[in-house]
C-alpha cells in the first residue's frame, strides 16, 4: 500500500490508455510522455502496460508500507535519483518536489499501481472524469495498492544518458504535413516551419496553445473531422493548438500538420515560454524515429 502524504500539483494514474475508443468520443489518454513512462516501467521490471504515476510541475510525497522498488523518469525530480532503480524501505517516504527541467515526471513502482480497469485501462480520463482509481487526480490521504506485475528483474544500472530524450527546450519537433493541408495557402507549411513558436501557459494533457509571433495563417473552414494526438490545429484567428493524448476525438479546425509519435514526449515536457520549431519529415523518417525509441526500450543497458 502507498499512502499519498502530499498530492503534488496534478498527479494522476496513467498507463497506455484506451487507444480504440475514439469512436465513442473517448480520448486515447495514457502517459503524455510515453517514452519516459515506458523506461520507468522497464527500470523496475514491469511490463509496458503497467500503470504508474504521472506528476505535473510538482510531484507528490508518498509513504510506502512495504519494501518497494521505484524509478523516476521524464522531467527531473530533485527528491531522489532519477532514471535508475531506487529501493524504498518499509515505512519510508519518497518526495518528488518541483520538477525542472521538464514538466512531467513518472513514478513507476515494481508491480504496477493497481487501480480498477475502466474501459480497459487504469488511466485517469479528465474529460470523462473516470479511471485512475478515483475519477480525479490524486489527493492527500489517497491509498494506492501495488500490483503483482513485476515481470523481469529490475535493472542494475542507471538508464544510459544516450537513451534519454532532451529535458529542456528549445524543442525541434518533427511533423508530417496534413491531413487538411489543402485548407491553407500554398506557402503556409513553409511559413510555419520557419517560425519560432512559443509555448503559452495554456497547456494540459488535452493540448498546447502556441503563440506564433509574426505568423498568421488563415485557413478555410472545414466540416468536423476526427483528430489525432499531435494534430496542429489552426483556429480562425490564426492561433495554434497542438493536441496531445487527452485530445478531443473530433474537431472543426483544420490541421496543417501532425507531430510524429516519436516527438509527442517532447511536447509533454515543454513549459510555458519554451520555443518550439517544427520541421517537416516524410513517413520513412517518422517510422525510423519511432523504431529508434522502441529499439532503445529493448536494449539491455
Amino acid at each position, binding site marked *: 500500500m502507498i499512502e499519498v502524504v502530499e498530492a503534488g500539483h496534478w498527479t494522476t494514474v496513467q498507463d497506455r490508455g484506451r487507444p480504440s475508443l475514439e*469512436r*465513442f468520443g473517448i480520448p486515447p489518454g495514457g502517459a503524455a510522455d510515453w517514452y519516459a513512462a515506458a523506461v520507468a516501467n522497464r527500470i523496475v521490471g514491469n511490463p509496458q502496460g503497467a500503470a504508474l504515476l504521472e506528476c505535473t510541475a510538482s510531484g507528490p510525497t508518498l509513504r510506502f508500507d512495504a519494501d518497494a522498488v521505484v524509478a523516476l523518469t521524464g522531467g527531473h525530480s530533485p527528491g531522489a535519483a532519477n532514471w535508475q532503480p531506487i529501493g524504498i524501505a518499509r515505512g519510508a517516504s519518497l518526495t518528488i518536489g518541483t520538477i525542472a527541467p521538464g514538466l512531467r515526471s513518472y513514478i513507476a513502482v515494481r508491480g504496477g499501481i493497481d487501480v480498477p480497469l475502466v474501459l480497459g485501462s487504469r488511466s485517469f480520463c479528465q*474529460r470523462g472524469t473516470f479511471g485512475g482509481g478515483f475519477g480525479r487526480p490524486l489527493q492527500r490521504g489517497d491509498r494506492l495498492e501495488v500490483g503483482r506485475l513485476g515481470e523481469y528483474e529490475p535493472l542494475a544500472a542507471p538508464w544510459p544518458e544516450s537513451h534519454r530524450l532532451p529535458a529542456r527546450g528549445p524543442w525541434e519537433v518533427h511533423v508530417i*504535413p496534413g491531413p487538411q493541408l489543402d485548407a491553407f495557402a500554398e506557402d503556409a507549411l513553409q511559413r510555419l516551419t520557419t517560425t519560432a513558436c512559443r509555448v503559452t501557459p495554456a497547456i494540459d494533457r488535452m493540448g498546447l496553445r502556441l503563440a506564433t509571433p509574426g505568423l498568421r495563417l488563415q485557413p478555410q473552414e472545414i466540416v468536423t473531422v476526427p483528430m489525432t494526438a499531435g494534430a496542429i490545429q489552426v483556429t480562425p484567428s490564426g492561433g495554434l493548438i497542438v493536441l496531445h493524448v487527452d485530445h*478531443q476525438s*473530433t474537431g472543426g479546425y483544420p490541421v496543417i500538420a501532425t507531430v510524429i509519435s516519436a516527438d509527442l514526449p517532447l511536447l509533454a515536457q515543454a513549459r510555458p515560454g519554451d520555443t518550439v520549431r517544427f520541421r517537416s519529415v516524410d513517413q520513412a523518417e517518422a517510422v525510423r524515429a519511432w523504431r529508434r525509441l522502441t529499439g532503445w526500450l529493448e536494449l539491455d543497458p
Partner: protein
Amino acid sequence: MWQVAPAGDRALLVTVGRTIDPSLLGQVLALDKALAGRPPSGLISTVPAYASLLCHYDPGVTDAARLEASILELEGHVDAAMAVGSVVDVPTQYDGPDLASVALQTNLTPAGVIEMHAGREYLVYCVGFAPGFTYCGVLPDQLSVPRLASPRLRVATGSIGIAGRQTGIYAVESPGGWNLIGRTGLRLFDPAADPPVGFKPGDRLRFIPAS
C-alpha cells in the same frame, strides 16, 4: 472522389466529401463496415465523423501507402445506403439558459423555437469531441444561430444545444460554445456499459418536449 491523407505516422484520414450530407455519412459508414468486415493487415481501429473516416494502423505491420491502396480499392464498391433504424425519443425539458436569446435571434417566441426544434427527426452525424457528445443535423435554416461569442467553461451533463445547422447533446460535463435550449435525463455516457455511449452515427432521434 475519396481523398486519403496522412494524419501523422500512424493514421490515415479518408475524406469522402466536404459538406454535411446524409449520403456522405452513408459512404463513411459503408466504408467503415467494409473495413471492419475484412480488415486490411495492420488496421487497428477507425473513427467515423460526418464525411470522413480516420484509420489508425500499426506502422510495424503495414505502411501508409499499402493501407491507402486497400482503402481506395473499396471506392465505388461499398453500399452507401443507410439502414433505416428506429427513431429514438429523447425526452427534453426545454428550459435552457439560451432559449430566450435564441428566440430573439430567430424572431420566434420560445414556444416557437421549441416547436421547430422538436418538430423533426434528426440524423446522428458524429459522436465525438467529448465522451458521448452526439452531433445531430440538420436544423431548419430559421433556427440557425452562431456559437456563443465566449464558450461556457462548464456545460452540464444532458444539455441540448444548437449551433449553425446542428444540434447536439452534451453527454458529460464539459466546456462548450453551443446555445443551450434544453436538457435530457437520458444517460448517454456510462463507462460501465457496452457500448459506453447511447448513440452512434447513422442513428435517428427526435426530441420530445416534457409535458
